[in-house]
């Protein structure tokens, strides 16, 4: 779907939502805040994600609603979000979408130019370290393998079931 079509259908959905056009109607924003905070484990505090996961703060409410509804409608839920979306009623999804739409798109902290405090990026260093160690282990293993193959002519079946 093109971006503009997507926006249009987003607006259409937004207009058809109860209360969406009249935020003055009392809806407890702290209830929405609590509900929406349950996305933060993966999408970051207030929807500002780290790594490759998607930022959701400042998204159009209609787009978020539509995306989550699409996930909910998958015939064969495949990924985590397809399942997560099934955990919420349409009304709850609307509340979550409205909440994140009310936040600025850019993390005010990031905007202020301040480095994010306390980096928690664990993977890159660990992964590389591991890869090196792993390669060494593979090399050792290859040596063993050669030795063994000389000793016994049996084939190594270990990786057979690897799929």
């Amino acid at each position, binding site marked *: 779907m093109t971006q503009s079509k997507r926006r249009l259908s987003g607006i259409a959905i937004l207009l058809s939502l109860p209360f969406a056009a009249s935020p003055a109607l009392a809806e407890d924003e702290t209830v929405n805040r*609590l509900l929406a905070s349950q996305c*933060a484990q993966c999408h970051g505090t207030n929807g500002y994600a780290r790594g490759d996961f998607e930022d959701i703060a400042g998204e159009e409410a209609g787009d978020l609603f539509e995306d989550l509804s699409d996930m909910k409608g998958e015939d064969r839920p495949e990924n*985590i979000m397809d399942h*997560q979306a099934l955990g919420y009623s349409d009304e709850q999804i609307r509340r979550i979408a409205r909440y994140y739409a009310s936040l600025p798109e850019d993390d005010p902290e990031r905007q202020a130019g301040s480095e994010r405090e306390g980096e928690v990026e664990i993977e890159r260093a660990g992964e590389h370290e591991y890869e090196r160690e792993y390669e060494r282990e593979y090399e050792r293993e290859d040596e063993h393998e050669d030795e063994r193959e000389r000793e016994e002519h049996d084939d190594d079946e270990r990786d057979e079931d690897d799929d």
Partner: protein
Amino acid sequence: MSLKRRTILQMIPATAALSVVSGQSMAASHHVVVVGGGFAGATVAKYLRMWSNGGIDVTLVDKNSRHVSCIMSNLVLNGQLQLGDLSFDYSTLQDKYGVRIVQGGVRRIAAGMVELESGDLHECDYVVVATGISFDDIPGLDSRKIPHAWIAGEQTNLLRDQIREDMPRDNGTFVMTIPRAPYRCPPGPYERACLLADILRRRGDGHRVVVLDANDRIQAERTTFERAFYGLYRDIIDYRASVSVASVNSDERIVTTVAGENVHGDVVNVIPRHGAPGLLVESGLTGGGRWAPVNPTTYESSLIPGVYVVGDSQATAQPKSGHMANSQAKVCADAIIRAAAGLSTQNRERLANITTNSACFSPITATEASWLTAVFRLNTETRAMELVPESLGEAHDWNSENYSAMFDWSENLFADTFR
């Protein structure tokens, strides 16, 4: 007014805004002491400060100066990560959110009071207890020799070193035991069995991983783990259901089962049955049970008003996971902020929107992972949290994309908790 302050103001209903946001009116009278700075406690402390805009005083007490995450700690066993990668100090909670950090073991809890082992007393309006788990005693078991590695830290390194040093190149036996559910991280032990099989089959031939499960079947991601145990690792993993540990010979590394069988391993990893720590039992928070009963709309103890219990220590039927502990912590923080502002926690709109969720990624090999996820919601009639059945899902496959997503997921979860 800064953008940040305006945003936060918008989030608070007019009735509460004055008292919660202005801070002054609450600072003097509302003080929360959080005991335990793991996934539940650190999240409660952070969100209490963030959502009250600093209007509530929060003190976080942990016996350690930093928390070592159990999440991802199975990757320490194969050398992929080190404990330092999984250690989180409390400096961001202190500097960015204004949480007061106290290092010390807590020995007693009562309504409005926390007593440290040093004898120091901390008085407060609300106590939040988030001290995780402790283990049952097993005759003969000395965890300095037979590690559980189920609370991350020294124990994790001990098990890693034993695997490196005490497993022979070929024909070794690794024995692990799984406790009766509920235990922390339902897929965790099966994930560990897979990683061990992966480590050992790279090392040499003829290794076995003997899994003694006190439960009558695999407790989580059954499709995935059955495929791994009976497919990929069928020559290595020997999975036995309904086998409980009676005693352990910690020097000889022998597990004796309730049926009387002796199982010897070159390395033995016994994970004893869990319960809420003795601190909660002695403070009257468990009422004779294994875990602390709470009201899941607030996580207030059913036994001691004004004391809240979140994370693995509490008794609801939600899975004991770090993701879930973080999730519950937000419900608890919201409830305390409301209570402090004199607002109801039990109005219909709030109750209709109480949800929690969990996600676990399980490495199955050193480069591939699977996942499990679920959403829970409040049943407003029974007032219990219940699984939304359609939301429960597990990965169709273990693969490298999941493996990479596992690092994004943990990075975000760690940040939402500690940063």
